[in-house]
């Protein structure tokens, strides 16, 4: 088994391009593009609390069910992809979903996600999760 011990990987031809070979062996892809640039697990109930995170400088409670995640390292543009999820309390049978909030707070330095259900609108969740892929600045 071979092992590389290093603190940094840099492309030789292009510094930001390290290529990996696909599982099936017939394709290659850019390592930097496929790596998550941020993930955030937080509890919205009561005092907002980050459970664990990567590339998150702070979390802000912007109202019931609304959380702003600020990045330690900014994204390069507004073309990044975000996904989210949260837990469903057993006492509530309405549909619960996580989405980008329509407050237009979607910048290279932060994103606001809201958790809501079909019965009462925005609601706080005890387990809210978000993941981000895109280009770092």
């Amino acid at each position, binding site marked *: *088994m071979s*092992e590389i011990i290093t603190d940094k990987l840099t492309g030789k031809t292009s510094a930001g391009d390290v290529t*990996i070979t696909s599982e099936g062996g017939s*394709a290659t*892809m850019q390592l930097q593009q496929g790596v998550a640039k941020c993930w955030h697990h937080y509890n919205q109930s009561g005092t907002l609390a980050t459970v664990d995170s990567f590339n998150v400088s702070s979390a802000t409670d912007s109202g019931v069910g609304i959380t702003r995640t600020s990045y330690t390292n900014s994204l390069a543009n507004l*073309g990044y992809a975000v*996904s989210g999820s949260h837990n469903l309390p057993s006492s509530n049978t309405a549909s619960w979903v996580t989405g*980008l909030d329509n407050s237009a707070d979607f910048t290279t330095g932060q994103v606001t996600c809201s958790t809501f259900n079909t019965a009462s609108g925005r609601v706080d969740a005890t387990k809210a999760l978000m993941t981000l892929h895109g280009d770092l600045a």
Partner: protein
Amino acid sequence: MAGKIIADTLEHSTAGSLTTDYVVNGSAKSWVNFNGTGTIATRDSLNVASLTDIGTGNHEINFSSAMSDVNYSRSTHMQRENTTASYANIDGSYNNDTYSTTTLEVRTVYMNAAASGAVDSPIVSNQIFGDLA
């Protein structure tokens, strides 16, 4: 000529080590951020050849490099289009939608206790994890 390293493990001096199967298997194989309103438009993407606007709240993502099978994981996210707080916007696929190694059909809909329907969203994100061919 670009260099090539074949290794099973990467180790950082302080952050720990990681076997490279996590790098290959754990990396997103596709992601995209697009505007689903008006003329559908990609803002940025990885491994996306094109988008197809099927109809309101209905879009196809066509991959540049095919997945090896249809067992891949996907997540889709959208910005709420409706300003009414009681509306939830959800995303996903219908059970007859295209879910192939080269194309994924995604839906964006709104829903509340009284109504639901397809809606175009200004920001739609999709991420794919799985095996490339």
